[in-house]
């Protein structure tokens, strides 16, 4: 999910549109798009899976990289906790 869908989102909304290389989509169009149930399902997957992916990897990377094995549980709680908060925000926005 992250590998397939994140690059195009960043390229479009993070680089090309802010630089003015592509005309920004209108609010009416974006609202219609976001209001479609399938788009919402897609966005939910995009955000929820992205968050869990990041939480899982960051937890183990920090613990390996900085030798924080003894803080493993704390890191896990922080990472997954933050991800769950993010998923809750996503659900709140989209439903």
């Amino acid at each position, binding site marked *: 999910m*992250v*590998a*397939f869908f994140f690059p195009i989102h960043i390229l*479009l909304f993070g680089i090309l549109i*802010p630089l003015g290389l592509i005309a920004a989509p209108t609010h009416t169009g974006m609202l219609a798009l976001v209001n479609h149930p399938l788009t919402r399902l897609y*966005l939910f997957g995009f955000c929820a899976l992205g968050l869990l*992916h990041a939480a899982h990897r960051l937890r183990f990377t920090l613990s390996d990289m900085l030798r924080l094995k003894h803080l493993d549980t704390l890191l896990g709680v922080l990472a997954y906790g933050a991800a769950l908060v993010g998923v809750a925000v996503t659900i709140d926005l989209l439903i």
Partner: protein
Amino acid sequence: MPSAVPRYRPYERRMPLLWWLQRWNYTWFILRELSSAFVAWWVVVTLIQIASILEGPQAYAAFQAWMAQPLLIIVNIVSFIFILFHTLSWFRLVPQAMLPRIGGKRTSAVMTGAPMYVVWAVASVVVACFALGVF
């Protein structure tokens, strides 16, 4: 009488804090994993984007003005590079880990890897068309 078997603490090799700078392989691995921080960042941006679209035209315009700041564009270019690295290294890894056999014959790495690039391209085009209102 022999005394009780002494208890030993398991031997733990001390790792230097910067062990991941000792070899390129380690550094690449850590950089690849750190790309997930940019994934998290981008989920946050997407959530703000959705919230601003749902709030109304003014909030959406404010979101776009916020995204157009030079600092954010730089952060996003760095994010893009990291996530591209993540994607490409994943696509390179899968054919090495997964060797499906068709009719008892091992498929080549190209056979396993190529479809992913195709799916990636199609997914990107579809998302872009929807986002830019082509459909």
